[in-house]
């Protein structure tokens, strides 16, 4: 199994994309979009993280197992955050007893 070698030019392109996205995220943050600010900021952050993982960290040329491992990390983090959140969003709400 020989590994894939990407060219320096390619790495530089990825780097440029990351810098541009950083600029965009700073710029968008100045504009008041209400709740959408968070969505945009996180979308950009996820995009950047994916760029780093797929190209700098060579996920593109990795085995399925490695990709799965990386995904599992984020999936479990989602479990932790979402289920914990489910407590907080429904706290203090006690619906009336049905039929009473």
């Amino acid at each position: 199994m020989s590994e894939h070698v990407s060219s320096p030019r390619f790495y530089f392109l990825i780097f440029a994309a990351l810098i541009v996205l950083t600029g965009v995220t700073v710029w968008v943050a100045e504009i008041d979009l209400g709740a959408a600010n968070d969505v945009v900021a996180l979308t950009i952050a996820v995009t950047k993280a994916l760029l780093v993982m797929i190209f700098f960290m060579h996920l593109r040329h990795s085995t399925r197992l490695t990709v799965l491992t990386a995904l599992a990390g984020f999936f479990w983090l989602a479990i932790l955050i979402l289920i914990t959140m489910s407590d907080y969003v429904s706290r203090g709400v006690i619906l009336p007893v049905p039929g009473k």
Partner: protein
Amino acid sequence: MSSVAADPHAVHAHAQHHPSLAHQFDNLDQQRESSTLGMWIFLVTEIMFFGGLFTAYVIYRSQFSAAFQAASHHLNVIMGGANTAVLILSSLTMAMAIWAAQVNRRKLIVVFLILTMLLGATFLGVKYFEYKEKFTHHLVPGPNFEFDGPDPQHAQIFFSLYFIMTGLHALHMIIGIGVLTWLAVLSWKGRFNSEYHNPLECAGLYWHFVDIVWIFLFPLLYLLGAHAH
């Protein structure tokens, strides 16, 4: 027992033994795949480690959004943004170091590793000035905390999260620089080449991961209050 059969490779017969091949592996490919997988699994534990903090952040952010925005306003977006760029650049140089190994350019490996470390040190330097600023403005949680905006208590929670998240991130950078120093020495001695460079690769994975953590920390901590004045 029928399940044991004579295998052509007897255990101790490492005839064509590569100097970098550890005894428990059969060949370099197996060794390389194992170390990459091991490193990724380690990164998963890192995701969960920072994940606990992100969870706390998400919960409190959703509860005390106004306080968090106001507190976030006291962070220096310019320094944070510059640091983001520095880190991304360091990721590039790290990737280039591995590329240099892949194409057998020993000197270049060392150059890129040193560049990476310098950029990392720059990041830490900027961080130091940011922290110092927080100290002088009494924004460090504890008995001396002072915050003139509304809702100082929840702002204190924000700064607690800020310090622990960026602090642990910085700690990871310091460890990373230590590892890179060691690898630079090994590269200098010519240990790595196109055939064998998994230590470099693993260190690279680690370095990029630390970069990714910052990619999330930057908008979550610095930018969320940018539009609210």
